[in-house]
């Protein structure tokens, strides 16, 4: 048995495929690639595929991670070639590596994520800058989501604004993606008074706990 970690991007039509459905997308892609998939035990054996961190519907990403277990050894370049020949449009493999079988589950290891947000409509950048500063200075930012109150502020690690001349304003966010403490970019946009449906969001980095945060 081996465990393989696939770094990949997700874009195009697949933006509208949620995490649960992505599990099936990968499963079928791996079967088309004829990987020797390892299955879980039990009444309904399922292929052992483990995605790091749900990507909200509509977001693209250049920094997704997934682990898959195979029953037989297989050279990594062969795995990569087989998978690349079998994935649907919208997925791109960036790296393939072997992971220790006993390493902790990916979901428990993700720590923070970076998001790049492009705003579709013109905004007053100075005003937005002030709102960002106020948000970052606030000791707590209470918001309600699905009927529950929570504090958004500690979930935001960093935020900055970028105004390229002649191009739409962009925001860069670093949010926590720990189990039970996941910051959502659309919540930040709403808090800033921006329309999340008038923005394109891309996840650009996913950091694991045992890695050093580089660019906070």
């Amino acid at each position, binding site marked *: 048995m081996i465990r393989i970690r696939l770094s990949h991007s997700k874009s195009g*039509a697949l933006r*509208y495929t949620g995490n649960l*459905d992505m599990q099936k997308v990968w499963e079928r892609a*791996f*079967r*088309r690639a004829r990987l020797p998939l390892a299955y879980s035990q039990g009444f309904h054996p399922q292929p052992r595929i483990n995605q790091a961190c749900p990507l909200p*519907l509509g977001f693209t990403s250049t920094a997704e991670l997934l682990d898959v277990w195979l029953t037989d050894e297989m050279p990594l370049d062969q795995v990569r070639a087989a998978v690349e020949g079998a994935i*649907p449009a919208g997925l791109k493999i960036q790296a393939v590596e072997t992971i220790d079988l006993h390493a902790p589950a990916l979901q428990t290891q993700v720590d923070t994520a970076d998001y790049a947000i492009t705003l*579709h409509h013109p905004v007053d950048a100075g005003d937005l800058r002030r709102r960002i500063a106020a948000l970052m200075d606030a000791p707590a930012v209470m918001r309600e989501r699905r009927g529950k109150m929570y504090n958004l502020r500690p979930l935001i690690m960093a935020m900055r604004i970028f105004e390229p001349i002649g191009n739409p304003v962009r925001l860069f966010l670093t949010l926590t993606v720990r189990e039970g403490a996941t910051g959502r970019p659309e919540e930040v946009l709403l808090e800033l008074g921006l329309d999340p449906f008038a923005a394109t969001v891309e996840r650009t980095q996913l950091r694991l706990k045992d890695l050093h945060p580089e660019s906070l």
Partner: protein
Amino acid sequence: MLNSHEIALRLERILPQVQKPGRYVGGEYNQISKDWQAVATRVALAFPDIYDIGLPNLGLAIFYEQLNARPDVLAERVYCPWIDMEAHMRAEQIPLFSLESQRPVLDFDILAFTLPYETLFTNALNLLDLAGIPLKSSQRAAHHPLVIAGGHACYNPEPMADFIDAFVIGEGEEVIEEIVNTYQAWKRTGQDRRALLLALAAIPGVYVPMFYRPVFQADGTLERMETLDPAVPVNITKRMLARLPPAPSHFLVPNIEVVHNRISVEIMRGCTRGCRFCHAGMINRPVRERSIEEIVETLQTALDSTGFEEIALLSLASSDYTRITDLVDAVTTRFAGKNLVVSLPSLRIESFSVDLMEKLKGSRQGGFTLAPEAATERMRTIINKPISTEQLLETARAIYSHGWPTIKLYFMIGHPEETLEDVQAIADLCKAVLAEGRRTIGGRAQVHAGVSTFIPKPHTPFQWVSADSVEQIEAKQALLRRELRGPNLKLNWTDPRDTMLEAFLSRGDRRLGEVILGAWQRGAKFDAWQDQVRHDAWQEAIADAGLTMDFYVHRTRFVDEVFPWDHINPAVKKSYLLEEYRNSQSGILRGDCRQQCYACGILPTFTGLRRLNRGDYWKCPEVPARKTPALAE
């Protein structure tokens, strides 16, 4: 009209706000995206319900693969937007677009609907409207797409005749190519739309309703169907493939959950059992089987190209497949150890079926399904589905003892001449099956009874009969609800109003065009969805057109009545259907027509094809040639 780029921009904003946006973006594995400019003819294939239901449709899969195999044609897909998406599209003026290229449907040459059942009619109108295509065929000009339709519901095309330019009657694989070729030839000449429709009407199996006019009698029945151009045929005989073409294998693999996430392979087409209520059994004759080798190879290619975890071996009666044991053995051997789920629907009620399912080693979670349809011998003789209660109970014992805790039993109420005693017998039979289960496996045993209501269909021996009234149906359902209570018994039934609507549309004539249009204008759509169907809108539209549901649903027809679908020839003779109707009334059973030919009309209609395809590919037994001239080639 927006172009594909503008549509894409508006979708960016809308998609995050609708349920399951993956329905509207395509991009599935095995999607075929061709260069729009590089082909002569663009076909939009439409399934008039949502993506979740349309994507697994085998008919559309066949044409998608087949048309895209032509270098000069591209085929893209269209489904109904769900209510939320439709509201956004209308608000943002986004026209109906294809999933592959996000092009407006108006830009296509041909819009082809599949209409497998009648409750899709208003959805088809809604799609035309969203596309910006005039709803009525008579209002369309040369620049509008040609609107065609095929599928089982088109064996009575009259209710939709106002809206469809040309119907395909029967199997579409060959005729779709002829339609495309005819379209291309017409386009080169630059003639008007009438010229195109006349050319299409000359293709065998194509019905162009604008060249036909129904003439009604004072009592509302049809006097005759008049042809309006000397060039068009009086009768339209269905198309039938002498041999089944290669089955599709490069199925689209959806990126979201749909109703059936699986590979479907038709192991055979048609059925020789002759159940008198069964539309599919009458119109899909003769029976043709694919070889085991072809089925297994198709499955292998399909598994390699899709990665699906489930396969379905489809037919109207799996147990009748000549070498069914060998087929099941071949499939289980070839794909052993692959964690595949194999489904084999429509098994006969006999313990041998349990052996077959046993070999498939599938999950027993969903239960084992049997379809006795009726519970008394009298009823079974009327519908020509003879099985003995003893055999059913024996099969039930075998099912429970082989580890299935649940048996699903499908029945129909409302068969001709049915009494409350016959309905009581359904309840008794369910209880008897459950008692077998209790004896065999104890308290775990379950029975789920699915009781639908019979709808008389065109081109069947019961096309003359009256459907039960709502009161009759309600009384029967009340009896079942009263009787089938208690632990481990589950009962499902159909809302009688849904049955009435389908019965109304099934045997309708051309005057229903106004009703369908009126119902749609009053908001009717998604009529197959219990939570969406608008019976009030239908009632109003029927009244507005000066018609009554009773005339279409609750009227026993005279044996010599001219039906609105009589000019559509399914190759099964009306005289044969009448004979079968009379047999049902005099309690005469007819056996499997693989054993003995009852002269339904298939062989004389297709003598030429039969001559070219001797042997046992068609499951019709050889009949000594008679001295009568062939009806048609």
